[in-house]
């Protein structure tokens, strides 16, 4: 899948939902690989390229109970107002170590499956920290879900380009 197209998709998705950060993962075997990473807060601190480099970690095993793995395996949509408040009984959790490493606070998160033109789920789009008009971090609302779903449908229909 075209990486530039995925970067454009992530930028559009963030614009449509006012998300300050996001990641696109692609599945390869039993792992999720980083295909696009953006974070405005870190980019302002260290530059976009440096931020992308720092945030692009090694692949994520699907066996880990991350939100991205959960969405990849279940094809569910997950919308969490605050990832630090995920209840223990949920089948996914948030790993705070990345936040601690980068001095960042992930709060709201919206995660959806990424499909290709045949409807096969090939990866995951994860958006982080929606902002309201005042610039405060808020939860992703139903409109954000609809706009992201519409973008992903369009992306799949266009054959991932």
């Amino acid at each position: 899948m075209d990486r530039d197209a995925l970067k454009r998709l992530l930028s559009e998705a963030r614009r449509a939902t006012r998300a300050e950060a996001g990641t696109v993962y692609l599945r390869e075997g039993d792992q999720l690989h980083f295909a696009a990473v953006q974070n405005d807060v870190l980019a302002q601190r260290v530059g976009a390229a440096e931020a992308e480099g720092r945030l692009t970690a090694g692949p994520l095993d699907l066996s880990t109970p991350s939100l991205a793995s959960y969405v990849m395996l279940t094809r569910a949509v997950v919308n969490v107002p605050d990832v630090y408040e995920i209840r223990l009984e949920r089948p996914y959790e948030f790993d705070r170590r990345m936040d601690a490493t980068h001095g960042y606070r992930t709060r709201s998160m919206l995660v959806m499956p990424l499909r290709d033109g045949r409807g096969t789920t090939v990866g995951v789009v994860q958006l982080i920290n929606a902002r309201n008009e005042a610039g405060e971090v808020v939860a992703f609302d139903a409109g954000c879900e609809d706009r992201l779903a519409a973008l992903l449908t369009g992306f799949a229909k266009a054959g991932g380009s």
Partner: protein
Amino acid sequence: MALRRWQLPLLLLPLLVLAPAAQGQPVEGTVIRVVDGDTIYVKLADRVEKIRYIGMNTPEIHHPSKGEEPGGREAAETNRRLVGGKRVRLELDVRTRDRYGRLLAYVWVDDVMVNAELLRLGYAQVMTVPPNVRHQELFVKLQREARDAGRGLWRGV
């Protein structure tokens, strides 16, 4: 291969015929065929164009791998009711054609935008393909209302 001088007018032809729309003047024509819920053929003054509605998607009647998708016929029938044989006005957005060469448009019958009407009736889903996002907010709102009211394809969902 070098471009020959005589070929230039042929290459520019699609741009020239769309020029009025690009300048904000409406393109008008008559619907001569309804393919499905989001695609029609329109006879313009000098040619026939295949039109793909912008910003939404309806279930396919002839999907290459899935055959007929649920609701495809209903969506096509509703579209036919809205535009079949009628005079339409085509509003274009930033990108005017898709990779299949179809003209991309918001289709108006009098003061009704058909793209929006199909979403309002619940026979389409919002599908955003940047940069054509002019009416995206309206479309998302109409889809949500249709879904909440259980209209069209959202019935029983």
